Every structure is written in C-alpha cells, then in structure tokens.
C-alpha cells in the first residue's frame, strides 16, 4: 500500500490481550511499512516497555481482558506523566465502549478507531495526527520552553489562519490564559467559542474561569446547566463537587460524584475521591463497598495503590470490623514492598490494632511507619500517617503531616477534602480544620515574606537558607520553589556562586516540569541572563 509518510522509523507499541488481534495488527502495520513494532498482551508488559522506549504511537485496545481497560491505563499514564508529549495514543474500541471513551473528557486519547477498521484507515488517521502535531509544534515548543506568553503568541498565529485547528487552538490558548492568570481574557475567549457552538469543554472552562474570578453564582449556574444538557460529561461533575466541598457542603458533593460514577464507572482517581468523601460523611458501608469492589476488580492491575487498602481498612474499622481490616492489610503487605507503601500499611495496621484494643501492637506499627523517611511524602501516605497519629493521640505529629499535604499542594481542592476527612474522622470540628488550613497558608506566606525581606536587606545567605529549606520540604509548592529559584538567581547575579547556580537551575527545571508556563520563570530567567549564565 502506498504511504505518504515514512513510517519505517516510527516506533509503535501494540497492546491487545487477544493474540490473533495482535498478530493481525502486526501484519497490517508491517504491510504499511512500519518496521519498529513491539507487541504486548498486558498493561504490566506495556508499562515495562514504555519505561524504556520512547514510542511515536501506542495502539491500545479498550478491552484488555481482566478489569482494567485502555481508558484507565491512559488515565494512569497521563496522571503519572509517563507519556511523552509527541507520543500519539490511539484507543481501539468497539461501538459499545466508544461513548465512554469520548465522554471521559478529562483524559482523551489523541484519537480512537472504531472496530472494524482497515489498515488504510489507520494510516489515514495516523497521517492526520502527524499533520496536527506538525502544525501545533511551535505551541508545544513554547510549552516546553516554559514561556506562557509565547504559547499565546503562537496560538494567535495559528488562529489568524482560521484553519481547521481553529477551535482546538482556542482551547489551548484559553487554558494558557488561565495558567498565567489572565482570567478575564480566558472568559472572553470561552465566550467567543460558545458563540460558535455550545461545546461542553468551553462551558466548563467558563465555569472554572468565573469561579477563579470569584463569581461563584455564575460559575454554579453554568455547571448546573451543563449537568442537565450533557449528563455524560463527567469532568463537570468533578468540578461541581470541588466547588461544593470548598463551600463546605460535603453531602451534596458526595451526591454529585455518585452521579458521575454512575455515568463513568471505573475512573480510579474519582473512586478514591468518592470513597474519601463517603468517609467524611460517615457513610462507611458505602466507602467499604466502593473500595472493596475496586480492589477486587483491579486485583492484578498495577494501577492499584497501597493507599486503596488503607481507605478500605479504615472504612472497615469504623464499622467495627477490625479483623477484616487487618486481613485486608495483610493481603496488601504481600503485594506492595516499596517504602511508601510500607508506611501506609504500617500506619493503617496501627489504627486497626488500636481500635481492636491492642495498644502495644498499635504503637509498634506506628513506630515502624515513623521510622521511614517522612520528610517528603505523597499526600495519600501523609494522610494515612496523620490518621494513625491522631488515633494514638499524637495530635501534634498528625497536624505536621496534614500541613505537609496542604502546603505541598496549595491549590488542590481534592486534597483539602482529604485533610478534612482525616480531621473529621479524628473527631475534630470544622473550626479546627479551618484553622489548620489557614495556619498552613499563613506559614507559607510568612516564609516567603521573611525570605524577601532578608534578601532586600542583602542578607542573601539567610534568605536562601530559609526558602531553600522550605523548598526541599515542599517540592510541589511552586510558589516556594519559584521563590527559591529567584532568590538564588538574584544571589548568583551578585556573587556568581557555582553551587548556587546549580541549585537554582535545579529548581528552575522542577518548575518547568510541573508548570512550563509558570509566571515567575520569566523573572528567574531575566535574572540569570543578567548574570550571563543562561544558555
């Protein structure tokens, strides 16, 4: 078959549990000229391959046998940043699952192919995707170069052409405007798109922008209307529940998420969030059911986490089923052996033993958890430790872990919800939680202010020590990390200290990895340029 694109050097990964389908796809792609093909039958094998090879195309069947599907796998890869930007991910689906793939708007594949399709059709799609990549490359490059304003400038160039990517590029530009906090302009652009067509993503974008501007009523109205007109658009349910949680209405938030789970079952992060919300509302039986089912369903899937068992065991404990909780934790211990999972399991064991009246065992398990390095923990691990500390009456230690979650993820409303859950289960009232959240934010502001004051007074070393300490403790708090990079850059401009430069570039890279359009990058680079040390 004649091809327009030279595909012989394109690396392709085919994931399908059916051996006949794999070999047929291989034959087809080989006949099209593809030479670098890898075939795997399971998600586990796919993960091993993706860890070592940079693929141009991943062709993944929706139905992968077992209970984890291609959509969930894609969600996992995207949320764990395991996919290269220019890797094209295509889901192959039958007509029955097509709608759920398309409706999962929070995590869309680059394209999908409806079965049956021909090799010719696949090639046509692939060429279309390559063409799109080529046209949007300048935008991607601006993203990679962390330049938010350049992203917008490149978008404007393409928008002026009024070509077939017009609406796609509006979407990218609006998201970029939101990130650099030009929210008013984002509102304008979303409205412009909505003039063309009532698209769900533009409605949701507008709702988010209005919320950011503090226009909560307008935001809520848009989101409510969208729920009625597009009940399959689950991202909107997530947004609505976040807003309700922020508004201290956990019961309503839970209801909204229950509705979302009904229309899009199987989304792991939503199930976890939903379980946590159910616990906050004291619906332990529901939490147990949700998590037990998910764990069973994903029994041999690498998408599970030890924290899922921690949630399940806590739901069991609250219903007085400590024996069952300990049994499920025992099962978890046989499946996870990394240090973080060990902390989670030990902390959960401590709670179960405590509630079973076995205080000695409880203390031993908690000490085992605390013996690991607990300075920088993933939020679910820190939450488990905080729960265990509260249970054993170590409130101060518990608060430290909760503050770590809040300060390290300042804008994450879901995690704020998780902190609220931990506190409410420990019998803390809402005022105490509110104080904890406020204190956490105040501490960060104080560190930043003290650092800036010291730097302005020329006390660079002290300023650096203060902010760098915080940045090491809170590597996800970009506010702190960017200030650390900036203060180091200012100091480098004055002293040309090589160690400080290395440290500064390190933080700068961390910011780029997490938010390539972070507003402070321009300032950091300007300062480094002043020191004539940027590339």
């Amino acid at each position, binding site marked *: 078959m004649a091809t327009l694109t030279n595909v012989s050097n394109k690396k392709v990964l085919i994931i399908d549990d059916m051996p006949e389908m794999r070999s047929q796809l291989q034959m087809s792609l080989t006949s099209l000229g593809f030479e670098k093909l890898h075939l795997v039958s399971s998600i586990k094998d796919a993960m091993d391959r993706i860890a070592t090879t940079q693929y141009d195309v991943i062709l993944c069947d929706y139905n992968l046998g077992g209970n984890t599907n291609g959509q969930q796998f894609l969600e996992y890869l995207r949320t764990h940043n395991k996919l290269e930007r220019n890797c094209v991910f295509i889901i192959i689906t039958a007509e*029955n699952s097509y709608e759920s793939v398309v409706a999962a708007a929070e995590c869309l594949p680059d394209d999908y192919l409806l079965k049956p399709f021909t090799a010719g059709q696949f090639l046509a799609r692939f060429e279309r995707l390559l063409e799109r990549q080529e046209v949007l490359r300048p935008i991607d490059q601006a993203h990679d170069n962390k330049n938010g304003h350049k992203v917008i400038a490149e978008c404007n160039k393409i928008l002026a052409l009024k070509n*077939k990517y017009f609406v796609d590029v509006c979407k990218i530009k609006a998201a970029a405007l939101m990130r650099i906090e030009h929210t008013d302009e984002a509102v304008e652009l979303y409205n412009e798109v909505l003039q063309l067509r009532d698209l769900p993503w533009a409605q949701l974008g507008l709702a988010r922008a209005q919320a950011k501007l503090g226009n909560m009523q307008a935001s809520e109205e848009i989101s409510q209307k969208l729920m009625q007109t597009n009940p399959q658009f689950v991202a909107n349910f997530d947004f609505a529940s976040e807003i309700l949680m922020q508004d201290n209405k956990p019961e309503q938030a839970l209801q909204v998420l229950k509705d979302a789970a009904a229309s899009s079952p199987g989304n792991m992060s939503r199930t976890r969030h939903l379980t946590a919300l159910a616990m906050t509302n004291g619906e332990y039986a529901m939490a147990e059911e949700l998590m037990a089912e998910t764990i069973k369903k994903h029994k041999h899937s690498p998408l599970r986490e030890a924290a899922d068992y921690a949630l399940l065991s806590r739901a069991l404990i609250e219903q007085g089923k400590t024996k069952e909780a300990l049994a499920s934790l025992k099962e978890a211990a046989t499946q996870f052996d990394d240090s973080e999972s060990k902390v989670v399991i030990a902390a959960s064991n401590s709670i179960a033993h405590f509630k079973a009246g076995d205080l000695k065992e409880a203390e031993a398990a908690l000490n085992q958890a605390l013996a690991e390095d607990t300075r920088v923990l993933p939020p679910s691990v820190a939450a488990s430790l905080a729960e265990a500390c509260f249970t054993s009456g170590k409130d101060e230690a518990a608060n430290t872990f909760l503050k770590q979650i809040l300060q390290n993820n300042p804008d994450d409303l879901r995690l704020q919800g998780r902190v609220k859950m931990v506190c409410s289960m420990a019998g803390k009232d809402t005022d105490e939680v509110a104080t904890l959240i406020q204190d956490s934010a105040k501490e960060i502001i104080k560190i930043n202010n003290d650092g800036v004051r010291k730097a302005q007074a020329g006390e660079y070393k002290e300023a650096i020590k203060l902010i760098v300490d915080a940045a090491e403790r809170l590597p996800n708090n970009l506010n702190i990390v960017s200030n650390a990079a900036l203060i180091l850059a200012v100091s480098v401009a004055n002293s040309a200290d090589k160690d400080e430069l290395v440290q500064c570039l390190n933080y700068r890279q961390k910011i780029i990895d997490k938010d390539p359009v972070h507003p402070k990058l321009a300032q950091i680079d300007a300062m480094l340029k002043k020191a004539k040390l940027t590339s």
Partner: protein
Amino acid sequence: MNELELAVIHDAKNSLGEVVFRLEARGGCAAEIVSLIHASNSLTNLLIWHRQQDGAMRISIDSTSPTDLLHELVTEFRQFFPNITIESNISQAPMFWFYDEAYIRLALVNALHNACHHAKMMVQLSVRQVDSKLVFTVQDDGAGYDDVMLERFSQKQLGEVSRRGTGIGLALASSIANMHINKGVKGQVMLSNAGGNAHGAVFELALP
C-alpha cells in the same frame, strides 16, 4: 438485546475484523474486504440501533474537519471499489464544523456502501456549507430509490426491509443526524432521485 446476544454479535464482528486484516495483508482482495466490512458494519448498525432505541446512545460534538473526513472516506472506498469512479467535491467546504465524527462517519459509510453497490460507474461525494448547515451528499448513477422507499422514508417508516436493503442503515443515519442539535435546529437526512438528465439516488445529510 441480552448479554448473550451482544457477546455473540461482538464475537462475529471480531472474527470479521481479523479476516479483513488478513486479506489486506495478502493484497488484491478488495471485493472480499468490502463484503466483510459491509457485514461487520451491518452488525455495528444493529448494535447501535438498539442502543438508540433504548435511549442509551449519546453523541459527543466537537470541532472537526469535514474535508479530512471526506478525504479519508474517498481514499478508503476507492480501494474497496476499484471499478467505480469516486469523485469528491470539497470546494465549498468550511474549514471546520461541529459534529460527532465517529457517528457521522458511520452514517456516511453506510450511504457510500449503498451508493457504490447500486452505481453503474460513478459515485459523487461532496461536502458544502449551505446557509447555516453543513451538507454531506452521496450521489450514485444507478437506478435511484424506488417510489415505495421514498414514500416510506417521507412517512418516517424507517427500519423496514426493502429491495435496497434492510433500511436500518438509513434509519440509523437519520437518528444520528437528528441527535445533532444546534440552537433548536436538528440535523436531518434527505433522500431524493437526481432530476433532469442525471440519474441515481441522492443521499443528503445536513448538520446544523
């Protein structure tokens, strides 16, 4: 439709898909591939028709390029029907439009199969903007739709077996079009026979 019936149909579809790949790799089997794809599409139509009847079918509308879709279809069908001349006209196509591409593709594939099947030697495929609608047209140079069929279609008696086929493809195309609604205006399928010196069936799919 119960789970067993669904599973059987999916099984059959998967087997057909496998044979398509095998024949493609072998080469020179266009006619066989067409028949298999047609068989598989018929099963897909049936499954989606049931979803539609149960009120479970949902469409997702986003911006997409009608020209790209037409290009894909023409390339594919030229390979399927090497003896039919397939012409496409995109001169009045807009750069982008808003629809569920997978479902509109399915509706057009059904119409194209039908047209290529009944054409003497030529099928014309076009997409153009007419006022505030996007109109896809598939026209063949065959004997055209018979009067009974046109009558039934105008009476909305869809899904009935006729000489030209089961009618389920048309019924489905019609509901897919109807589900595309913009500012209160629904999409629609129109059938007619070419007038004047021209002959043949004209299938039009209009999207607001």
